[in-house]
């Protein structure tokens, strides 16, 4: 659990980078600019979003009927997980589902709302550049994967080899 929490904190840095790029705009425009993507890309994203929503809503069922039995079988010990009403019990630990779900949806809802909310009777200002004429040459999304591309295949193969080894063990 601690490893997942800490790993999640590190991973969230990457999400920030991507989300930062998605909502970035200059002081000269105040409206979101929509891009059309091919159906093969948008279709994949819609399926992913659908699966995430279904997984979150079906968490009580998934935890008790799927994850707990698999974990119990893998670890060869009982995993005390139960659901009662809107709570999940992991041993003696109680996790209230509704506040967690609300919190989970708050971030995307706020960001989407930020795209469409417009303030009236306000003046617009350009970004502060400390009196200098600065050419904006970097952004939050500045890492390049070009150098790492040749290693993608090897990493993928290693990942599946690791999966097979773990499964065999």
């Amino acid at each position: 659990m601690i490893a997942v929490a800490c790993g999640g904190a590190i991973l969230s840095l990457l999400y920030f980078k991507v989300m930062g790029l998605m909502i970035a705009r200059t002081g000269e425009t105040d409206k979101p600019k929509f891009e059309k993507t091919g159906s093969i890309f948008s279709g994949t994203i819609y399926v992913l979003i659908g699966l995430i929503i279904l997984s979150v809503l079906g968490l009580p069922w998934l935890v008790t009927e799927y994850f707990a039995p698999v974990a119990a079988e893998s670890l060869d010990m009982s995993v005390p997980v139960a659901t009662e009403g809107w709570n999940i019990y992991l041993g003696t630990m109680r996790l209230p589902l509704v506040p967690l779900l609300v919190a989970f949806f708050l971030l995307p809802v706020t960001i989407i709302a930020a795209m469409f909310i417009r303030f009236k009777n306000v003046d617009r200002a350009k970004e502060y550049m400390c009196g200098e004429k600065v050419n904006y040459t970097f952004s939050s999304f500045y890492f390049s994967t070009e150098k790492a591309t040749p290693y993608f295949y090897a990493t993928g193969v290693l990942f599946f080899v690791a999966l097979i080894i773990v499964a065999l063990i």
Partner: protein
Amino acid sequence: MNDYLIPVLLIVLAPVIGGLVYGFERVVKARMQRRIGPPLLQPFYDFLKLADKRKMIVHSAHAFLGIMHFVSLWFALGVLLLGGDLILVIFLHLLSTALIILAGYSTRSVFSHLGANRTAISVLAYEPVLIIIAVSIFMITGTFEVGAVYLWDEPLLYKMPLAFVALLLILPIKLKKSPFDVAEAHQEVTGGVELEFSGLFYEAVYTAKWLDYVFCYTLVFLFAGNNILLGIGLVVFTFFYLNALDNSTARVNYKQMLRFSLGVAFSLAFINLLINILS
């Protein structure tokens, strides 16, 4: 009814309490530097001055995210004071920080971007420690409910001294105090993510800082269990410790901050957790 009266009052008055703490902090810091300093109510005078300023924004999404940072932080504080789930509180607090980071990224300002990057690194520095502390509290009390921790007979400090030290080490990062004030570092990034806010919209970010004080000192108070006097003592000690540290240290860079936080504070919290598990 009475059980909720004090928490609800604290929630409603949290910005005022936070403002007074900030005002007192400025007085104490000034005295430490042998200056007279501003009056106690200076933060509120600033508040009124900002309210009267011309409303200027870079773009609406940026201004909206700043306001939502304040709202979500107040909400997180509300859940904490009402005795909610500690994991949820930490998550909601992270959410409010995420919104101000995204606000920083949403503009094409170099200082704002650098500040957002540094704030994200700060989250990486203190968040794992907070999670370990929450798990340690669970190992002792058997619950993540803050309400149960407030009523715990024996102060948690006695069983979690290392975790308390770890909390003391990460609080300067959270409250952007020297030597870990890299996120706003005025001389380097002129306030970081706060830079592009002004007037009424800066007011939200400014007041959120006051709420952060109340949030952090409430976390400190948790270590006293139901011993209110000890809780007040811990809060007062932490207040003077933070200000003495802020006044007497120079800023480190973000790599040093991260190395120190994950190397020292995280290790201390983790050792405390292991001791709690073994005992």
